[in-house]
């Protein structure tokens, strides 16, 4: 009798373990957002500190490679859409495409350029926390540079079996939210066309600020 109960328990335990293993297998297949983000950050760090590309004369090359690595993880189109928020729904397909390409260019020019100061490798990135809820995740990291700590979080979503960034939060300040408030202000005051004009100006401004930059392509 006792033996029978033990057998039953054993079978239960086996079923439980199998279902848990199966469960784990399913989620492993989906990939996890933290390693995805870490991989991108590592790649960017490697490019920036690559001894073969050191020096200002190779900055152009490094910048293009970084931009490429970042573009694979960041969904700029989604960021553009979220930044435009309500106004996005009122735009037609061509307008949306134009806006996304301008927004992409703007982020590339402003933020990749700022990474230049990180080329000396005097910083460290530590991923400390990740929260996953369904198909969305919040990946937190700490950037340490010269005794200063800057909290940088990435909001990500899952598409297929890949994770993409749709917002960056630095010290509690969300990039998308900040752009959203500004875009809404400009649209309310001057209209959507004015916003596009201002975007075009900004993009050409940032390019002019870097005389060695290629065109707007």
């Amino acid at each position: 009798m006792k033996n029978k109960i033990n057998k039953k328990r054993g079978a239960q335990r086996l079923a439980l373990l199998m279902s848990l293993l199966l469960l784990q297998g399913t989620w492993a297949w989906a990939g996890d957002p933290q390693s995805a983000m870490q991989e991108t950050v590592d790649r960017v760090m490697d490019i920036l500190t690559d001894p073969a590309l050191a020096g200002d004369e190779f900055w152009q090359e490094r910048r293009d490679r970084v931009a490429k690595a970042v573009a694979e993880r960041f969904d700029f189109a989604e960021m553009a859409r979220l930044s435009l928020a309500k106004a996005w729904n009122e735009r037609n397909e061509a307008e949306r495409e134009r806006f996304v390409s301008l927004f992409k260019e703007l982020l590339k020019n402003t933020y990749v350029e700022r990474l230049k100061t990180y080329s000396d490798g005097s910083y460290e990135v530590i991923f400390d926390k990740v929260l996953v809820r369904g198909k969305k995740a919040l990946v937190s990291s700490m950037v340490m540079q010269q005794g200063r700590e800057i909290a940088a979080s990435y909001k990500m979503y899952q598409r297929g079996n890949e994770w993409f960034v749709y917002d960056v939060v630095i010290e509690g300040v969300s990039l998308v939210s900040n752009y959203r408030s500004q875009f809404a202000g400009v649209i309310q005051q001057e209209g959507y066309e004015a916003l596009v004009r201002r975007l075009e100006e900004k993009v050409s401004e940032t390019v002019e600020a870097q005389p060695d930059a290629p065109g707007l392509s």
Partner: protein
Amino acid sequence: MSPSLFLKIALLTLVLFGGPMAGAGQAAADDLEALLDDDFDSTEQMIYDPLEPVNRAFFVFNDRLYFWLLKPVGKVYSAVLADEAVRGCISAAFHNMAAPVRVVNTLLQGKFRQSGTEVARFAINTVLGAGGLGDPAAAEFGLKKADEDLGQTLGFYGVGEGFYICWPLLGPSSARDSVGGAGDYFLNPRTYLLAGDFRTSAGLSALKTENAVSLNGHEYENLVRQAFDPYIAMRNVYYQHRRSLIAAAKGATDQYGAGDSHDQLVRRSCLDYNDVVSFDNLIRARRYQKCLEQKGGRVSVSRQRRQARLIYRVLLDHNAADLPHFAQVTNFEE
């Protein structure tokens, strides 16, 4: 959940997301509709700014002040004190001197451990760090620097921002944070040490400002240069940052509340242990919750909490793959 049901779900997921690109894109797009009202985003509330015209005028005034006076002076200052580390030390000394502000505010928020940290930091950095010029408390003792002020304390107790104010010279603030700032002024020892000496006091304030400009001025310039409307950009940055500080302060103490669902509890305990939480862990916690539900009301709330905490310790101490151990701890067989 039976394994067969799982297989079905797995297959369904495959069909939905592993299919042709067009299908995957469509499914993802539908899901992304939900991103606007984002789970993690609590800063999209309205900002009340009835004084906008006046605020804008002061913003322009501050901006001119920065580019015409503070920045040129800052250049000279940086040239004299070329070593950024030295300027960092000056900034640290000002921070150290204001320790009473942080001690009082952590006490007011009931964060006694943090108050202790602030007292210890002040003692260590004043004695071993040459009056606060260095930060051995962080470097040698692992006591990290933090920022606390009365505005945060008021926010911690649910006081809203009120309206936005851009003060001349002082910059962005809110009605609440301005009241807090006035209170903090009286908590700062500088106020009393230099009570009768206006010139020294003003000189110190100027030094503090110039030092901050030399260290962080480029951040302000970047913000202004990149902005489409620098005024809105600055206002948004200020509110987002303040709200995140207050949210963090609330999250740190508001734990294991009585009315919490198991889900919240689990999330809090994850945050508490400052550990990496994978989806697998959450799934397991859900299974555990199911198990508890099946038992009906026979398990007390405090026991559930204990279990939730225990489960995480075990999961994190032992590798998450250590399943038999996990099953044992969660009392699946009880």
